[in-house]
């Protein structure tokens, strides 16, 4: 192995060591399934390494990897979405207070609804509300227009709002007015 390649590989290993946890978390939010998230990150890193020679000296390595992550996931949804179910129970520190229990239930309800969203809508939500990206940044990552980002986010939020309804409804403690009528 040449010295240059060895050096490049070492840089890549350092990048992976520094960023793989963040990529895994994002992949987990996108896929809702840890095994799929691992596959997604592995594929993302393979594709990133293919381009490593030309991106390693730029400031956009992470943006490049993120773009691959999100777009690879977009091409994966079809086969997986009907087979894999999102994790529904999260291990939190025990806290028996009523507020905490309700909050956890609300979060789990929200997560179930997010997991049911179309992949692109979910990606927009993760980028906007977890990665705190601006709409132009999201558009750049997903390779779509800013208008599409906005419309996808709007549809996702409207869908979530409709499904969650009131906090009580989200927890299954009350019926939606329309259903009760």
């Amino acid at each position, binding site marked *: 192995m040449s010295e240059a390649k060895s050096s490049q*590989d070492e840089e*890549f*290993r350092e*990048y*992976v*060591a520094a960023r*793989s*946890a963040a990529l*895994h*978390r*994002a992949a*987990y*939010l996108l896929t809702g399934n*840890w095994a799929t*998230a*691992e596959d997604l*990150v*592995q594929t993302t*890193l*393979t*594709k*990133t*390494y*293919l381009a490593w020679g030309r991106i390693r000296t730029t400031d956009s390595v992470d943006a490049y990897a993120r773009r691959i992550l999100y777009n*690879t996931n*977009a*091409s*994966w*949804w*079809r*086969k*997986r*979405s*009907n*087979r894999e179910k999102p994790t529904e129970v*999260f*291990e*939190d520190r025990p806290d028996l207070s009523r507020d905490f229990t309700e909050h956890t239930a*609300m*979060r789990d309800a*929200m*997560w179930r609804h*997010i997991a049911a969203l*179309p*992949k*692109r809508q979910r990606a927009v*939500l*993760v980028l906007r*509300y*977890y990665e705190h990206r601006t709409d132009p940044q999201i558009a750049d990552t997903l390779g*779509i*227009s*800013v*208008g*599409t980002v906005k*419309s996808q986010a709007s549809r996702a*939020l409207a*869908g*979530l*709002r409709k499904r969650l309804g009131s906090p009580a409804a989200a927890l299954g403690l009350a019926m939606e007015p329309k259903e009760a009528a």
Partner: protein
Amino acid sequence: MSEDLETLLRSGLAQVAEAAPDYDDPGLADAAIAGAGRIRRRRRVGAAAGGTGLLVLGAAAFVWQPWTAPVSPDEGVIAGDTSTSQAQTEFDLEFAVLDTTGGYEVLTEDDERLAIGEELPENVYGMTDSYLVETADAATVYAGDGSVSDPYAMSYDAYVKVNTGGGEFAIVTPTTDFTSEEYRLADVLVEGGEAPRTFTTSFDITLTDWSDSTAVFTAELWSSTAGETSSAFMFNDSLDLGLETVAQAGFQSVVLTDQSDPNYVCVADLDPEAGTSSDKESCGYADDQELQAGLVDAADDPDSPELMAQAVGRASNSFDGDTLMNTDAAYEAADAEGFYEYEGQWSDPKGRWQIAGNPGDASWKLLDLEGEEPVITELAIPSGAVLPVLDYA
């Protein structure tokens, strides 16, 4: 509620992410390096294949690799230069296949299967969160969760168009006198989707792409305008293009790209509420700042110039409508190999590959456009493969 929901999303997603198990695999980077090495080796083999098989046309070197490997019946596939799994991995390639019971399935890039009905598909499109399956008389959406839409009926002369991103599709039906075409635009949600939008436009123009605000058509403009940039053309009025029906379908603007010079475009401002089109169209070149500003104003959509630019870019690289898209050099080289004489020809909407093959063939020809040089290889296809999925998502 909106702010509450957004706050909940921020905190909830962060908590879900943090609740995910720790992942610390020291072999992750090396596994990626090894995987990339395998892909590179395959491409090098293609690029370096025997000199007798190397065609050089212009700047593009073209490689033909003969099919050398034997049938592998145990695996149900033909072993070729490019294996099914390589195509699945490198191109996210998916196939519509005949299953063992006489129905059809999509074989995904990860070898999983989704049933897509009992009728032979004429095309299968990869859409946002679903597949759109076009058969002889209907188009049907099959969602990844297994739900299926009601079929959208298609007459024998109708065809399907899909917009960039795969969020919507159009069923296009010529009128009985073949002077105009009826477009029925539908989203791909099996449940909860909006009612299809419809419009009818002259045969002189053909829809190529669309967003919520803007519809892009091709038309023969140059012969009428001689490339003159002006805001005085009145194509819709004088040629009865039917753009007012596009307005009635809710679009804010129309872009017409010239068939001869796609960079030459005309923009029509529509009024969806009144269901009318502007009296005249503004024409010019797609990179003209003033024209782009006019489009943004007409569409009330800052992204409309991007939609126009993408459509112009695709049209500039297209030599047969939107069926085959490639560089001229690659086309000529593929043509020299008889690539386009096969009955089945498919192009990746994202421009990564073209495939040609005949029904019942043991393997197909794959034109790999991802590398620095276009390469033709023999593609091992899965058992029962009838066509590749065209991925728009």
